[in-house]
């Protein structure tokens, strides 16, 4: 019962079927998935390409509605303003407004989170310092490198001081130094009490930062457990559950 009270994200028997123009079902991306993410933990949603990770994330964010089952954030439907107030999201690509400067980007998202101008400016300064972009605060983000864009996107996700941070492939496309910085940041945020849900196909990254993982394949959960209790490396565990799936990019974690 205590565990249920602690839940930040709950998915109960959730499914999602995509349909064509004539409403005929085309793909069942998620099929009866249930999961619970508890307060303060770093939860990894792992799976090969096309396994339903992104669809699951979008349902958690309220960007997609489930075809069946129930999704709640902090006990609320994800599309409610109250649920979204406690949410931060870093998408797989940064999707920034290219004509805004780094500071304007943060001020914009701070405004959407309801922060007043003075508070937003202070928070933006703080986050720019944290992600190491103070020097380029006045430059349009359209000219940023991928790593810089990723860092400003992460700062945008954190601007509203969220209780839950959803990270979709947070280290995707980053060099080893930036990857290490991001992982350190995730650990620091988790240590500060933030709940984090991340997806990744880089198993080494997940192994480094996650407390608990779920492996999904073909829209279904195939395994779930704490990293320390797997009894083997995450890589072996993953391959055992998913098989030697051709669609899993081995090179990414063997590199």
């Amino acid at each position, binding site marked *: 019962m205590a565990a249920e009270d602690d839940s930040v994200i709950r998915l109960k028997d959730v499914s999602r079927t995509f349909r064509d123009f004539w409403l005929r079902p085309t793909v069942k991306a998620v099929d009866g998935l249930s999961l619970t993410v508890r307060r303060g933990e770093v939860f990894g949603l792992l799976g090969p390409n096309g396994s339903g990770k992104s669809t699951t994330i979008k349902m958690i964010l309220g960007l997609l509605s489930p075809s069946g089952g129930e999704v709640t954030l902090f006990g609320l439907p994800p*599309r409610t303003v109250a649920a979204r107030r406690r949410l931060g999201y870093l998408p797989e690509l940064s999707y920034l407004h290219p004509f805004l400067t780094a500071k304007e980007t943060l001020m914009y998202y701070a405004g959407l989170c309801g922060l007043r101008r003075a508070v937003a400016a202070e928070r933006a300064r703080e986050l720019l310092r944290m992600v190491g972009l103070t020097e380029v605060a006045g430059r349009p983000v359209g000219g940023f490198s991928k790593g810089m864009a990723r860092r400003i996107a992460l700062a945008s996700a954190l601007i509203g001081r969220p209780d839950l941070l959803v990270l979709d492939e947070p280290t995707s496309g980053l060099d080893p130094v930036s990857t290490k910085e991001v992982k350190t940041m995730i650990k620091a945020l988790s240590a500060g009490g933030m709940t984090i849900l991340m997806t990744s196909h880089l198993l080494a990254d997940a192994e480094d930062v996650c407390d608990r993982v779920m492996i999904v394949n073909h829209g279904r959960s195939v395994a779930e457990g704490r990293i320390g209790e797997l009894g083997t490396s995450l890589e072996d565990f993953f391959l055992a559950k998913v098989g030697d799936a051709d669609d899993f990019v081995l090179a990414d974690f063997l590199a």
Partner: protein
Amino acid sequence: MISFWRIFSLEILALVRSRTLAMLTAASVAWMLAFPHLVRGDGTAAGARELDIHFSLGGVFALLVVALLSSATGAIARERAAKRLQLTLVRPVRYLSIALGKILAHVAVGAFVLAVSCGVLAARSDLGRSCSHVLSPVLPSPAEEARDMYDAYLKDPETPEAVRKAPKAVVLRLLTQRAVDHYQTISTNSSTAWRFDLSSAAGDGGPIAVRLRFTNQLEMRQDVVGDFRFGGLSATVSNMTQAVLMVPLAGQGGAPADGVLGFSNRGKTALMLRPRRDINLLTPADAFGWNLLRAYVALVAILAIVVALGIFLSAALGRPVALFVAIVLLVVGEMSPSVVEQYPDELETSIADRIGLVITRFAATVTRPVSSLSPLASLAKDECVEPREMARVALLGSVVLPFAFAILAAFALPRKQDD
């Protein structure tokens, strides 16, 4: 509220930094400045002025309609395609704020460009020039007249069976159209009178005139010979006119309290006119400057409706489809009143024609509250853009319709994301 202003300012920034605002302003000012040097009027000051307002300010307005519609239909759809919209949708911001912020930003840009263009027009115009209220005779509404005609038809034993069996709504619609065009015949050596409501006519003591305008499908050419009498004012007219005849009234004393205009036909032939269309009383109104301001407010309100429609379609559809649908709706809305007016005999047409007419009539009904006011035409002819009409259009265009479209857009936003 903060998030609403953030959406608004982001959209303004996008329009400024993409140079949309600068290009629209530059194109509009260039057109306003160049037009009078490119085209000559009919040689009269009034003709040149009419041409100038119609085509210079009208050109800018047309440009803004097209540009803002194009921009508005992409405002949400483009962000969705670039996946930036999802970053906004996961924030604690109401979907209604997103739609309203984008609508307001586009309207603000349109209002700014239009204000600059009106400023250019004002700089070369005599702002103190007086305008006229254009009053129509007080008559029963066409719908009331149609009901009376319908009752009379039913009582008449010679009424064809087809009319009796036809749906009442269809017959009433046809009779209403007929009532609008109902002709009054004034025989030789007889008199008639029309009453005008002078309560909205402001000025006392200024010039008052009668305007006869025989613009109908037959372009009738009539001899108008007779006497007009309006309280202490009168005029004798002896003229053959094809289109418009202005008859200034003069004399001792002012307008009558009851607003009755009398006419005695002294000509050799009967005079036929449609009181609802062909005769107006022109009474003094305020200055051109005020009229320009009212026309500006009405034009901005119309732009707001166009923009709000574009934002709704952008929320509900992909960009190319939204733009296509918006343009089709705009064309149907613009054409529908004249189609309905010229093609009312649906009783004898095919199924396809009937469907087309139902759609066109619906479009005409929906757009009538706005299309009934023509601020540019009124401004060009020095006719008063009536404050009450302007207020109605402003309320519809600035509040009611944008809010309604914003609610629809807010409903469509998360659902379209589901596709």
